[in-house]
């Protein structure tokens, strides 16, 4: 079933929509959850939450891409769950490591509660990514959106791990410089 038909089922309030979503995007959502949470049962719960959230969001939403919509939804829910579960103790999984790599790029003048500012920062990151070569952009998104390990990215893109690390490092340096020009860092 294509995405438009699944979205149509949501709009018709037909529960078959969730089954079709799980069949088509279950593995995709589980992978995103697992990369952030590093726990199978937590990931499974998170994916179910994502289906529920999709059910509640469509309508009014009518996503152009159900895949990206579910990916972002799953990621945001996993971030919330990660934050709640590891508020005191840091879990050193791929997600934490990938976040740590970005610590140098993260503007210190934006608070988590400032949703509008975060959305603006998202737009800047978006513009930066469009200015990059396709392979660098994809590697960057796999690492920092999907939270895939360097080993997995290396395996999937056919580059050596050292090349992936080098691509990511240079992309982060360019991103910091880009964000600096955009006025994200206080002098």
């Amino acid at each position, binding site marked *: 079933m294509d995405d438009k038909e699944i979205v149509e089922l949501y709009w018709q309030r037909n529960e078959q929509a969730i089954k079709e979503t799980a069949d088509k995007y279950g593995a995709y959502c589980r992978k995103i959850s697992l990369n952030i949470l590093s726990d199978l049962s937590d990931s499974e719960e998170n994916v179910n939450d994502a289906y529920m959230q999709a059910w509640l969001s469509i309508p009014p939403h009518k996503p152009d891409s159900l*895949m990206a919509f579910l990916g972002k939804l799953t990621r945001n829910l996993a971030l919330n769950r*990660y934050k709640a579960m590891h508020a005191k103790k840091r879990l050193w999984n791929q997600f934490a490591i990938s976040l740590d790599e970005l610590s140098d790029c*993260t503007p210190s003048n934006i608070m988590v509660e400032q949703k509008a500012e975060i959305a603006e920062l998202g737009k800047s990151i978006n513009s930066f990514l469009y200015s990059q070569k396709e392979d660098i*952009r994809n590697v960057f998104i796999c690492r*920092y959106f*999907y939270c895939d390990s360097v080993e997995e990215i290396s395996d999937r893109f056919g580059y050596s791990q050292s090349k992936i690390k080098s691509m990511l490092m240079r992309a982060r340096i360019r991103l910091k410089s880009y964000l600096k020009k955009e006025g994200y860092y206080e002098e």
Partner: protein
Amino acid sequence: MKNEVFARAITEIDDELVISAHKNMVPRSKRKKWPLAVAACFLLICGIALYLGNSSRIEVFVYGNTISDQPVTIDLPAPLSSDQRLLSSDAITVPLEIKTKHKVDIKTEDGILEVYSRETDQLLCEGQTCKASDFVTVFWTIEAPNPKQIYKLHINSDTVVLLLSYSGDTNSWIVNKQ
């Protein structure tokens, strides 16, 4: 959570980018492997060729000249007179020098071989089958040779085969590689 701002912000990137990155993740097992396979085969062939080239490199000389498919006359007066072992009128002796990096088997069904060390002149082997290495002198003697017959000497089976025959044109015995 440290860096949560960035983690949240990156979730805002365009759907197109999210999809594109996911679609470009092609597992290595699905990637074309034939260029690697071709390169591996090429290296293997080069390796085998190099190994065989080195291992089968056997140089054979007579009177200091490398034996090739061009015939070399054997019964030249000077070498014959310089070595008492070659003076028998009923026999023909081919004085060969064999240079090789590895141990080789020398075999003939026609006549007798005497293998001498080039360094010490010591007799290393006598008979129809001998082993030799490095640099040796081999006297291949055939008693009462028949001019109508072609005699063969094998080095390492058929790696090098020397043919001794009588040439009616020059009225002399000649040796050449097969």
